[in-house]
């Protein structure tokens, strides 16, 4: 279970998200208003749309396709049409880089 260097801290704006592709997977990396970093699967559990195109509001990410809502810290699905939680991944920050523990 390696830690992988995903992006620079400055690549993600505060209260925003970026897409990060690694091997065959796509992930979403979030930066909260408290300057914490989080990582989830990159595709919405409803119809596999990239969440990086969505809107981050405090601790939630709204999917760009049908406005489904997740708590990106826990991956919890909060509003229909999403019913299935998102998978989350541990992150850590060091030397201006965001590392993700991928499995």
């Amino acid at each position: 279970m390696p830690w992988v260097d995903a992006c620079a801290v400055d690549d993600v704006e505060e209260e925003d998200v970026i897409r990060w592709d690694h091997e065959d997977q796509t992930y979403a990396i979030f930066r909260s208003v408290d300057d914490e970093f989080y990582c989830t699967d990159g595709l919405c559990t409803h119809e596999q749309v990239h969440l990086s195109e969505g809107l981050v509001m405090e601790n939630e990410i709204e999917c760009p396709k049908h406005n489904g809502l997740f708590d990106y810290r826990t991956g919890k699905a909060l509003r229909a049409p999403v019913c299935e939680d998102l998978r989350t991944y541990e992150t850590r920050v060091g030397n201006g880089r965001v590392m993700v523990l991928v499995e």
Partner: protein
Amino acid sequence: MSKSTTSIGSELTVRDYSLTGANTRQAIENGLSAAEWYHSDVPRKKLKSLMKRRDAPAIHDTVIWIALHFVFAAGGLYFWGSWLCVPFWFAYGVVYGSACDSRWHECGHGTAFRTRWMNDIVYHIASFQIMRNPVNWRWSHARHHTDTLIVGRDPEIAWMHPISLVLKALAFVGIVDTWTSLKTLMRNAMGNLSQEERDYIPESQWPKAVFWARLHIAIYAAVLVVSLVMLVSGAGWKSLIPILLIGGPRVYGCWHFVMTGLLQHGGLAENVLDHRLNSRTLYMNPISRWVYWNMNYHIEHHMFPMVPYYSLPALHDLIKDDLPPPNTSIWDGYREMMGSVMKQRVDPNHAIRRSLPPTARPYREHLHLAVPERNTGLEIGDRGGT
């Protein structure tokens, strides 16, 4: 504005609008379902600012909306027995029976208010007013956004071929629709979801659909009982008042939402993957825009459903050079739409194809082939909810 009268999209010889029929299979096979759609370019920073949610605009509009219910109902009651009550009931009908459609829609998207519970409350009130099961319609509308006007996939196509002009005209007085909606609510309340509903609603949500249908039916039954009690107690015509206040406006006040709703996609192309070809943006008067919550910017809404209604005019300004020119009024929209609808009655593959401004990127003519990184989970014959 110049328009082509040629057929566009994938031509169909048979049209089966059911969600489990031949065209469903065809749409999935052709990659038309859950496809990638055309989007105008909007820089992420700009889009983020347009998507930003605030409570204030929708609170402001909702306070006015609720107040208008009381003011017009009070006028209708005060002048009861005289012709002066008619304009009040007419106006009450529109704020109840038409404005509810746009509130249902925007709050269903969760974009009206910043605060989630506010969206939810208005969504449920508006769903009740428009007699839509709040669970079923949330899912059907998600499908409408995934597969806009894709035959066999979109459950919300208003102009299905062959087009019956009589039924369309009757929609303006809501009788047929209301009857159908009540029958659906009643069926759901008895725990019965149709095959189509089971297709687009995930199984985990079925009990909720039944619960809300029961609640709606219980309220309507109570209204009917009050009305009947008044009648047998000798209230005469006054016994109609409970129905005029609750439920009735879905019939006598729906005309405005039907008028604007039919314009959204009418006369435009089915089975294309570019909202500029299947949706209509038009300008309209400020009262209609308020009732309709700016859904006259319909191409913009479909391209960017996360942009709240109060930011759609700004979005329109930003991307209008990439869109066909808007119709200039409701009248202009109807003129264009009805011209096309009459042709579609003879040739259902006919569709309006407006010329794009020179600044626009060309229409996306080629249908979806494959997007390798997206596994949409759809398979031929798939009947699971989306």
